[in-house]
């Protein structure tokens, strides 16, 4: 049985861009899913708060001059022994937890976004090349991808981390932890992009406009970037969203495991790791608030990703 459904992007002709956006199917589906709307609001709010951390925070937790050990392990204000200066309490170094979370979220976000951007760049480039050039190049790239796919991302990230640490003997973790985390995430998540892009490239490359561009004598890189890329990039959107959540989890996990950011530059994962040490002595807040922030943020992103995947799937209206 053949089924014809209107294309996902169909929208009645409107005048302004705004009315066109509002009339679009995606917009309609978005507002029909209250959970997604809440998730979007939450994740935008968290991202904004992280970006504006210096404005919102009551102190700079990275600045040793503002941190006093005497303020360590103070519970949240509403508990006995709370201190109005530290709404959510302090950690073991005397850092205001609220400020540390804002700054930590910023670190997590920057690493997550950069890592995903790196993964996407590597993956898209290799996918385009593999699909377009084909032959042995394709075989090699895809074989590497296959092998890598059998290893969970966290293992690859750990390996990259260990290797860099070995090669950078002597230098302090502060100097390279940031870059290595981004590299680890980039190297562990590229495969999915490469596979998706390669698949669509294989289909697109035989179409007329590509033939035409080749006949005109345009150089291959130009064909890849200007003509092919815009036509194969679509499905990457969903992967990007879902990967951002994964990347932030990976960063947090590595930092938790003690191979990510050092306690002097805490990310959410570092804070949780610190808090975990004090859980048994009853200092529950150090682990709870960063953990909650992380969970809510990743959950929101995943909710959006999930919704986006369903909304873009033409088979489920």
């Amino acid at each position: 049985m053949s089924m014809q459904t209107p294309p996902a992007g169909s929208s009645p002709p409107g005048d302004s861009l705004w009315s066109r956006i509002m009339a679009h199917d995606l917009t309609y589906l978005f507002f029909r899913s209250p959970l997604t709307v809440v998730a979007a609001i939450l994740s935008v709010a968290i991202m904004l708060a992280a970006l504006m951390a210096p404005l919102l925070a009551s102190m700079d937790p990275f600045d040793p001059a503002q941190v006093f050990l005497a303020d360590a392990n103070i519970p949240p204000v509403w508990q006995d022994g709370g201190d109005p200066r530290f709404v959510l309490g302090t950690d073991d170094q005397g850092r205001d937890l609220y400020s540390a979370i804002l700054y930590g979220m910023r670190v997590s976000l920057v690493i997550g976004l950069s890592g995903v951007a790196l993964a996407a760049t590597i993956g898209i480039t290799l996918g385009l090349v593999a699909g377009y050039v084909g032959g042995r190049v394709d075989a090699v790239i895809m074989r590497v991808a296959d092998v890598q796919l059998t290893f969970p991302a966290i293992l690859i990230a750990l390996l990259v981390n260990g290797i860099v640490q070995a090669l950078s003997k002597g230098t302090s973790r502060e100097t390279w932890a940031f870059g290595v985390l981004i590299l680890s995430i980039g190297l562990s998540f590229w495969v999915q992009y490469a596979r998706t892009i390669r698949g669509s490239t294989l289909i697109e490359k035989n179409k007329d406009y590509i033939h035409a561009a080749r006949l005109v004598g345009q150089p291959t890189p130009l064909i890849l970037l200007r003509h092919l890329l815009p036509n194969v990039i679509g499905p990457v959107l969903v992967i990007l969203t879902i990967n951002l959540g994964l990347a932030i989890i990976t960063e947090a996990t590595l930092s938790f495991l003690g191979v990510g950011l050092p306690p002097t530059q805490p990310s959410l994962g570092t804070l949780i790791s610190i808090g975990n040490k004090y859980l048994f002595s009853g200092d529950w807040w150090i682990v709870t608030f960063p953990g909650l922030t992380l969970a809510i943020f990743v959950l929101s992103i995943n909710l959006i990703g999930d919704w986006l995947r369903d909304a873009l799937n033409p088979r489920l209206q």
Partner: protein
Amino acid sequence: MTSSAVTPPVLELRNLVVEFVNRHGTLRALDGISLSIAPGEVLGVVGESGAGKSLTGAAVIGLLEPPGRIASGEVLLAGQRIDQLPVEELRHIRGKRIGTIFQDPLTSLDPLYRVGEQLIETIRTHLPVSEQQARERAIALLAEVGIPAPEKRIDGYPHEFSGGMRQRVVIALALAAEPELIIADEPTTALDVSVQAQIIAVLKKLCRERGTAVMLITHDMGVIAETADRVAVMYAGRVIEIGPVRDVVKSPRHPYAKGLMGSIPALDERPERLLQIEGSMPRLTAIPQGCAFHPRCPHVMPRCHEARPVLEPIGAGQVACFLHEVRS
């Protein structure tokens, strides 16, 4: 309605309306379908892609996919309404009283079960027989649909059969419980041209032997001309002409049917002129007012824009067109 008729039609559709409700509003995919099939009769259903042929079949067996639903009208099987039956009772009718054949034999069978297992399972779902009896019956059915060495092939998996052979298995499955009606939705479209005729021949022979009525949906006018007793022509979710195959194929009355029939060169006569119908069938979202065919009709009249012609008896058949309106 003459309720005194000796045998009611096997299938009767009265003003069947099927709608899809989505956020753009309600789409009316079938708009007042009325037709009937007598016992043992073969009714051909033709029309452009998207006319609603498959949907009609699906509505009859109660397998419309949501959000599709029967909005109004009646489906009668041997004089009994079945469109409002509870799910479970309708299931007993599917396979038992109405057999179905789909277009693609390659994907109709479950690849993970042997052909025999699928036959036996179908037989035992509908008939009170033992496993052994069902197996014997299955072998007999396979032999009847023309599968060589059925007692061996019964233990084969679907992928071990060719396309044509698989469609024979599908026919055997549809006939497994001796239904009164078979709905065959483009049973040969997916097949190799060389085996299409054989499959139609098998279907025709078996149904004639058993007196099974057939609703044969197809694009192939040749098959219609050879196989069907009567033909229904559909356009934009409506039946626009229905009648004996001789009349409708040889001398269609509705302008659309004329165009459709004109596009196949007849076998015995030389094609006078290949009638082309300009334009294409409207989408469900844009079905014109009045006669749905009027934007393409060469004989369009002012009233065709406003009023909708209904099926009216003419000769041995019925036509929905103002050109053939019986003037009072």
